[in-house]
């Protein structure tokens, strides 16, 4: 018998848990609305906008919705793309079939093995070690960073690392802007030029939320020991538009849970391209997403591009989909421009093994 936990918690009373949200309204705004309802004539309520975001969502084409959900999933980490069920607003379930498309490298195979085993392993052990934030740089932090929270999981991960001859890459520093990464690595300009925050639909305030202070997607990344890095950011193209992407650089011999896994659906156009420094690139362009893969001498680059060949729907401006408003479809030329805008020689040099 199935019970929906959230439904069963209706009318439950909770008194203590502190809760906050940047989207909480201001008391004076609520006061005006309440007074206008209860004491009309004494106050005037703010007017609702003519355009309802909900009407917009209901009109969303299924493909655009899947695109939006998949994109947000990718933001949470590539590993979560392994098998993702997507729910439409009407509740109809669609399961995305995602194929693995990464090179047959030890780093990828180890990450894949770990992804497939750790779900069960997390629950298998009794010695939960992941409750508290471990000391940065400690062995516990390394295990926690890769999702090993029980003794059984630790042992399994150790076995995988030994099998593939890898070591865990410790987190050195998080960062937000490319300039911070350049300062951390002592190398400049190996990422494409970033868009100007606030100047376009990708990086500006959410157009659907008047007065919203947050950007649709905040650039962020992390640099790991041995030169591995992950970064979610934007690239400015010559046409003036910006493209959001997730970059993962895995150094040879280093293990990063989930970071070596690239997944994609069907219907992709795939072709090869050679970067200026001779690096061979594989490009995949799908309807709502695109990938670029490159094998370097010292590591591997995986690029997940949050745009695709299908034109964004002008009427998809709600929440997660808002980022697509006003952005043209991603063409082969645009993907190629993005792909060759990375300095692969510099990325290779970061991977010191």
């Amino acid at each position, binding site marked *: 018998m199935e019970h929906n936990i*959230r439904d069963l*918690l209706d009318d439950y009373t*909770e008194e203590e848990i502190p*809760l906050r949200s940047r989207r909480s309204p201001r008391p004076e705004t*609520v006061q005006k609305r309440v007074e206008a309802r209860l004491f009309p004539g004494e106050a005037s309520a703010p007017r609702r906008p003519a355009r309802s975001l909900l009407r917009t969502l209901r009109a969303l084409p299924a493909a655009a919705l899947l695109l939006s959900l998949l994109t947000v999933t990718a933001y949470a980490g590539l590993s979560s793309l392994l098998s993702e069920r997507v729910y439409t607003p009407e509740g109809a379930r669609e399961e995305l079939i995602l194929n693995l498309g990464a090179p047959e490298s030890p780093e990828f195979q180890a990450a894949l093995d770990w992804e497939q085993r750790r779900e069960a392993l*997390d629950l298998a052990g009794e010695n939960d070690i992941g409750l508290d*934030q471990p000391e940065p740089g400690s062995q516990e932090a390394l295990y926690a960073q890769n999702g090993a929270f029980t003794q059984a999981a630790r042992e399994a991960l150790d076995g995988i690392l030994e099998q593939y001859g890898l070591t865990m890459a410790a987190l050195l520093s998080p960062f937000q802007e490319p300039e911070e990464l350049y300062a951390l690595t002592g190398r400049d300009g190996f990422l494409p030029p970033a868009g100007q925050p606030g100047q376009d639909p990708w990086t500006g305030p959410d157009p659907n939320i008047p007065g919203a202070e947050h950007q649709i997607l905040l650039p962020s990344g992390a640099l790991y020991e041995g030169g591995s890095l992950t970064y979610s950011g934007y690239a400015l193209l010559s046409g003036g538009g910006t493209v959001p992407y997730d970059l993962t650089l895995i150094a040879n011999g280093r293990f990063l849970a989930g970071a070596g896994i690239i997944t994609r659906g069907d219907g992709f156009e795939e072709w090869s391209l050679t970067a200026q420094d001779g690096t061979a690139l594989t490009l995949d362009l799908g309807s709502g997403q695109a990938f670029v893969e490159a094998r370097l001498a010292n590591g591997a680059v995986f690029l997940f591009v949050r745009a695709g060949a299908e034109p964004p729907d002008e009427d998809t401006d709600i929440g997660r989909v808002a980022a697509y408003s006003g952005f043209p479809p991603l063409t082969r030329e645009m993907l190629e421009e993005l792909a060759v805008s990375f300095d692969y020689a510099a990325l290779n040099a970061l991977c010191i093994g």
Partner: protein
Amino acid sequence: MDDALILQKLRAGDPAGLGAAIETYTGYVGAVIANQLRRRGSREDIEELTANVFVSLWENRLSIRSGRLRGWLGAVARNEGRSFLRKNRLLTVSPEDVLLISGDVAEKLLERDEARRLLWEAVDSLTEPDREIFLRYYYYDQSIPAIARDMKLHREAVKSRLRRGRDKLRDMLEREEGPFHGA
């Protein structure tokens, strides 16, 4: 102004009590609703639903039995958010939301009220921080990254605790153990 005084003024029909409640609890009520809506509603929607909660407070001021407002407001706010999503067909169900109960107790849980009562008892019997993680996720609809941020835990620890809590609840319900043993 504390809850007792706010309630006293509300029951006396004094709008100052309502103003104090709005001043004190808009942040919390708005957060409950914002978490429910996530990006499925605009800031205007959140403002309006938050206002609905305080209108309800005024309209029900004579029937509120609890001496504390926060729990009452939180429950109403959560219901406002979920009603909004349901009305607009935006309420989704994920596999993690479903508790599959088998065994002898399944028959008893055919009664929704019984299932609800048992679940509430089971949730309250969870040890901390599992209970807080569970309620943040299932009651307040906070995302795992937000829970990890607010509770200063690693995301994977939150996921692991949630899975464990869910399994524990199911086991307790199926075996009729714990706080409702013999119920």
